[in-house]
């Protein structure tokens, strides 16, 4: 009995997700166990007595064989239980639910800037190849690639917050607006809209605009260069020449023909950029005191809080997988050959 094509596709997709996730879990688990870090010491501190140390060692299940520990680990992850943070004693899932919306909010606004500015810039640079617009686009991208993000972030803070006072400083909101709106999504912009509290919205927006613009700039640099490259390839194709010979307007040639054909490639580029932003930009989060998943995982790693590291890594891995699937779905929408 053969399965209907849609069911077969769904099963294959789910199977590939499961295998990828299992591989990811295996690797993260092994890394967590072979790293020369003592998670017990991270909890009890350097002055603890041996009896306290031994008690915590057993409490963490570290006295059990590795394979048994891995089995427990898989079972816990399946139930979305990443364990308790070794350091702050809270469930890791709860911590991630708190920090991930902060990153999601920042990354989404960042990729928005990246797409809205990067794609037209790339198209324009391709269409006006060699012109001053192309040169500017090149310089913008080059600066975006090469400037250290911490320096750019600090300069942005100094100028727009310290000197001009146009934007809010480090942190997600000012001290007057901490915990003012109820947390529904964890994204303060969204929560303030839901609560119709426009003062909080304005304050939160003034805090997010600079770090998101900074992240957007880095995405813009990548997206615009890739867009330019894809467009140049299309614009030198025979079908574009034919369209021009037939007297089609330049607008139609560029946007209705050439651009239409780079959408699939562009989706991959944008999805990857977005995934990178969702992974969390550690330096941006540190400079702007943004409690996101990047700094969460980094702090956890430096503190040997392996439950938190593994939980964060699994979530980031899951994001990459889901964005890949989403890209595949969009391919099918934009490219009939992929259906």
């Amino acid at each position, binding site marked *: 009995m053969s399965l209907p094509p849609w069911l077969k596709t769904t099963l294959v997709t789910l199977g590939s997700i499961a295998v990828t996730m299992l591989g990811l879990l295996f690797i993260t688990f092994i890394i967590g166990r072979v790293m020369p870090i003592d998670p017990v010491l*991270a909890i009890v501190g350097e002055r603890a007595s041996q009896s306290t140390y031994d008690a915590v060692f057993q409490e963490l299940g570290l006295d059990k064989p590795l394979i048994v520990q891995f089995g427990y680990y898989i079972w816990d992850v399946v139930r979305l239980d990443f364990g308790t943070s070794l350091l702050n004693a809270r469930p890791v899932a709860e911590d991630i639910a708190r920090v991930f919306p902060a990153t999601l909010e920042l990354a989404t606004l960042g990729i928005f800037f990246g797409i809205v500015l990067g794609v037209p810039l790339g198209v324009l640079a391709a269409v006006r190849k060699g012109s001053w617009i192309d040169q500017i686009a090149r310089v913008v991208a080059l600066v975006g690639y090469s400037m250290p993000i911490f320096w750019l972030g600090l300069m942005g803070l100094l100028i727009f917050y310290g000197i001009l006072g146009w934007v809010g400083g480090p942190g997600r909101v000012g001290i007057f607006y901490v915990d003012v709106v109820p947390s529904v999504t964890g994204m303060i912009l969204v929560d303030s809209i839901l609560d119709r509290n426009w003062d909080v919205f304005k304050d939160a927006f003034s805090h997010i605009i600079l770090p998101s613009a900074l992240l957007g700039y880095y995405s813009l640099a990548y997206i615009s260069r890739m867009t330019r490259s894809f467009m140049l390839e299309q614009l030198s194709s025979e079908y574009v020449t034919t369209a021009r010979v037939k007297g089609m307007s330049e607008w139609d040639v560029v946007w209705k023909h050439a651009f239409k054909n780079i959408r699939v490639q562009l989706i991959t580029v944008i999805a990857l950029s977005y995934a990178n932003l969702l992974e969390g930009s550690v330096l941006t989060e540190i400079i702007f005191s943004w409690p996101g998943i990047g700094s969460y995982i980094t702090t956890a790693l430096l503190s040997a809080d392996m439950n938190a590291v593994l939980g964060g890594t699994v979530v980031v891995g899951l994001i990459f997988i889901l964005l890949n699937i989403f890209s595949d779905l969009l391919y099918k929408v934009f490219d009939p050959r992929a259906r």
Partner: protein
Amino acid sequence: MNAFNRLLSSAAIGLAVSVSSFAAHAETPANMLVIAHRIDDITTIDPAESFEFAGSDISRNVYDRLVYLDPTDLEAGYKPQHAESWEVSEDGRTITFTMREGVTFQSGNPVRAEDAAFSLQRAVILDKTPAFILTQFGFTPDNVAETIKADGNKLMITTDQKYATSFVLNCLTATIGAIVDKETVMANEVDGDMGNEWLKTNSAGSGPYKLDSWKPNESVTLSSNPDYYGGAPAMERVIVRHVLESASQRLLLERGDIDIARNLNPEDIAGASAAEGVVIADELKGRLMYLALNQKHPELSKPEVRQAFKYLIDYEGMRDSFLKGQYTIHQNFLPQTYLGASDENPFSYDIEKAKALLAEAGVEDLEIEIGVREAQERIEIGQSFQNAAAQAGITVNITVGTAAQILGRYRARELDVYLGAWGPDYPDPQTNAGTFAYNPDNSDEANATGLLAWRNSWDTGGLTEMVEAAVTEGDRDTRVQMYQDIQAQFRETSPFVVMFQQIEQSALRDNVMNWSTGQAVTSAAYWQVTK
């Protein structure tokens, strides 16, 4: 962020500030104190478990104790808090406290001797990391019902032997001496945990503040206790924001969005000190920076080699360069401001003397590994030492690792040399004497990982007995002299090269008054602050 990046960012900010002025700064409300601080070390708020710096700050402001250290008069030592007075039995083993009447917890429940007894018993029974501060007096989970007990308005604690009363009372000023509200805590008990899980993120104290929220790596918010027995604090709300980056803390301070920046690096301290409306407050803290030589190493165990290493440290060079303003030279195990502290610093940077001592010991072509935790200042100290040692013919290989990596090897007695920091646990000289100069059993089997002397395989040669004698000495002045004598011998014979004592530099808005980080002996206090 590495030193170059740190310098670059500070220089960039400095340059920009020099050509422009900040926009007119905002001000925090007059009844609110906003502090930027690194609080990622907080793991729990439960005073029976909390043992980190930032966590101790919270505990000090949320919980009261039997006796406390007054932030406006730290030199006075312990003072009565919820214990109005106390008497010591003739045999010196039992202290009977009389509780202050009419004091309530933030819940409205009265503070009773029963609560104080419960709090100390609970800390012993839970046996979390700081429990040793109490169990060193012979309290065990099995005997606490007898050794710590309440009777009406009286609390009696009976130690296993006679100790200096000052020693016992000093320990009770530590975080673990906090009095928790028994009724509230036990109402939140789960599976016999004595409310431990609940108290990790909630408070049940009688202090000047109560905990509103703790968001890990984000913020701590406290609100004042209007019914506080000592009077409601002027700062009705205290917000401690986790700001990791020094330059960001400085920007927030100079803009007026915070009142206090607690983690500015030397470059930003220098920059902020020139800013309008900002003042710098220095306080000596308890952290000591030291090198420790493993006495299992055949060469490092030679007395001349131990001496030679003490001349291979460029004390002044480091203090005046990358440690500027952050550390002062100190070569004793008791930090300044501690009872019995010594200001004798006999060693100086002297390569020739070190060479002569090494030659006397017959040491040639020595190659050693030094373990350093990945903190910038420690790495730089390690590199300075490496350079000096090279001039004396010693090859030093620096191994940099995370705290857990390096500490694991240090505790297992595996490192040749450890470069680290040590902070006291409670405001009594025994806290450091009992780890630097005390090691009753030097065998591997003893596994006394909590003792620094043991970690370095050092048989203290008589100092252990001297430490034991000092801890039971009732006369304060005699006790002070005993610690001076111990330290004099320690300086000459020990494998520890104590180098520096930390100075905490806080940058404050100039309207902030009475700020105290607690010096070397305790933690930061907020209730006496005014603006």
